[in-house]
């Protein structure tokens, strides 16, 4: 126990390298660049086609619009004037310029776990990117949400500042994985279910959550609903290349793969895998009962599947590795929340392209071909065939998602 504690301390110490204060050190800047990749800062702070980290990307939230600020070193419109303490306060405490409270669209509840040294390394790196004059008014929320002081209340309920504490009973690799997943890579920001105020349900960490029409799946090691059936190699491949024998990343995860996970070191990916494969499923619920095959929706769904889906996903539901996701035995297909399934059937989606897996195959849209009842039937069919078992999808569910997709694709 003592030796693994020592190992854990060493690990954290290592990740906070000795040359902490010299911002011109090449290794330090590279450390910061890599941490910015782990933290995927560019996902929000770089507008597509725009200069790196100059902000301006609009984030649509259910409460209104926020615009990601400029974090280049520009003194007037960027963060060039922030002190190191202020930069630390941003990521650790959710405090921006002049101590203003940030909205948790900036995932400070996760970044708070990062060590001071890592955060300052990111600062050192950001100080080297081209300063861009781009004045961004971040807070475009309507009243009353635009009152930042209200975040004090939210933080009191939902936020505990504090650095990551290694678990002495786990290996150094596990702790590194935890540090990344819970901290920099902030996986829980999408994958952890939220309370009604939008805070994390900490007792259901990584058990899946829906955001704006996509279901970020359960990535605990639950064998039925999560990634418990995935091998370690499956998980590593997925993060590195965006595809494995089960599925291909698309939607928001495609971006995370492109900008973040595919650029991680092998060691860090192995660490993430070690942590996630050990990550506490909820107490295993009773196995779902599959919908009977002679149910009318199943009958219609079977016909639709044969005519519309089987040419790619196959009669057996096994798909084709790295091309057509596997439906049989798939936890994604059996998710409690079918939001992603409905969306993908209606609008299609394109898989991520990475250097080692450039194909980026795409699922076509079926919204023109299948009515609400038909889409619901074929989804019910795939969720309950080949050994799968999950709640049927209702036509109303499809209809409401069709409407919301039309408003904000």
């Amino acid at each position: 126990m003592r030796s693994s504690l020592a190992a854990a301390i060493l690990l954290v110490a290592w990740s906070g390298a000795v040359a902490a204060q010299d911002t011109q050190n090449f290794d330090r800047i590279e450390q910061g660049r890599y941490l910015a990749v782990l933290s995927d800062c560019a996902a929000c702070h770089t507008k597509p086609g725009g200069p790196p980290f100059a902000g301006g990307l609009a984030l649509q939230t259910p409460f209104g619009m926020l615009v990601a600020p400029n974090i280049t070193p520009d003194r007037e419109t960027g963060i060039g004037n922030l002190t190191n303490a202020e930069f630390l306060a941003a990521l650790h405490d959710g405090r921006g310029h002049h101590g203003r409270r940030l909205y948790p669209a900036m995932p400070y509840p996760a970044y708070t776990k990062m060590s001071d040294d890592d955060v300052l390394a990111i600062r050192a790196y950001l100080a080297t990117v081209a300063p861009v004059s781009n004045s961004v008014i971040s807070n475009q929320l309507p009243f009353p949400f635009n009152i930042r002081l209200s975040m004090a209340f939210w933080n009191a309920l939902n936020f505990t500042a504090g650095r990551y504490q290694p678990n002495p009973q786990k290996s150094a690799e596990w702790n590194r994985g935890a540090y990344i997943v819970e901290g920099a890579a902030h996986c829980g920001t999408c994958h952890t279910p939220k309370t009604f105020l939008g805070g994390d349900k900490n007792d259901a960490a990584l058990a899946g959550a829906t955001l704006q029409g996509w279901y970020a799946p359960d990535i605990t090691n639950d064998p039925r609903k999560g990634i418990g059936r995935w091998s370690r190699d499956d998980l590593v491949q997925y993060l590195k290349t965006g595809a494995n024998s089960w599925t291909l990343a698309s939607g928001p995860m495609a971006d995370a793969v492109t900008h973040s996970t595919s650029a991680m070191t092998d060691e860090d990916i192995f660490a993430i895998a070690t942590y996630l494969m050990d990550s506490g499923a909820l107490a295993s619920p009773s196995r779902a009962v599959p919908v009977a095959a002679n149910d009318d929706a199943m009958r219609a769904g079977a016909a639709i599947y044969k005519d519309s889906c089987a040419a790619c996903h196959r009669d057996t539901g096994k798909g084709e590795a790295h091309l057509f996701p596997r439906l049989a035995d798939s936890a994604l297909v059996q998710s409690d929340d079918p939001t992603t399934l409905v969306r993908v059937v209606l609008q299609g989606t394109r898989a991520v392209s990475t250097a080692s897996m450039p194909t980026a195959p795409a699922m076509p849209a079926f919204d023109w071909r299948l009515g609400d009842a038909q889409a619901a039937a074929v989804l019910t069919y795939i969720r309950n065939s080949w050994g799968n078992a999950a709640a049927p999808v209702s036509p109303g569910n499809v209809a409401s998602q069709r409407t919301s997709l039309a408003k904000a694709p």
Partner: protein
Amino acid sequence: MTRLTRRSLLVSTAALLVAGTTAGRARTLSGGMPWEPGTATPPALVRPGPWMFFTSDEASLIEAAVDRLIPPDDRGPGGKDAGCAVFMDRQLAGPYGRAAGLYMKPPFMPGAATQGYQMPDAPAARYRTGLKATADYVKATFSGKSFAALAPADQDKVLGGLETGSIALKDVNAEEFFELLLANTQEGFFADPIYGGNRDMAGWKLVGFPGARYDYRDWVERHNEVYPLPPVSIMGRSDWTLRE
């Protein structure tokens, strides 16, 4: 109450640069494969309704003609009930009727048979003139009757005469017109029902063509066996519909 979200989903990868409108005109593509969700380009579904091209006289001639070109029998419906006239009406009202995309610059001059059709009249115009000339011929030859009012045997005589050219139509090449009429009728009988013909997949059922299917892997080597599944259209088949 819904949850606070973190990012916009209006755009895909940050590295991607796609200039230009989503309608896909003159695009500059660099950095990755473009993707716009929900952009399918299926054919427009033909719905029953009033004639869009044919006048009512033309329509009754066409409906009678297609029912002789493909007569109803115990194998199944004829051209009329299969919707061939509806198919042709919608086709002639659209780009096909206008000869959209064809090279229609002058000078027009007749050429050798090997040089293809050289006249400036698009299919829509050819039907106007051809149907009128045919109606005039029938009226003059059959004591003022319309084609639809003739007995089937006489209708066949007229069609056969057009086919061989033994009937001379005024200012219209009868053989060429008949060829066009027959081709469009058969298109209507065998095209996907989404276009208004081949109703209930009657044409496909006649020959045993399974329609818009896409996977026969399990059947390639099952030599001499009848393929068991019913035909399916781009718009599905009756088994797709829920019963309750």
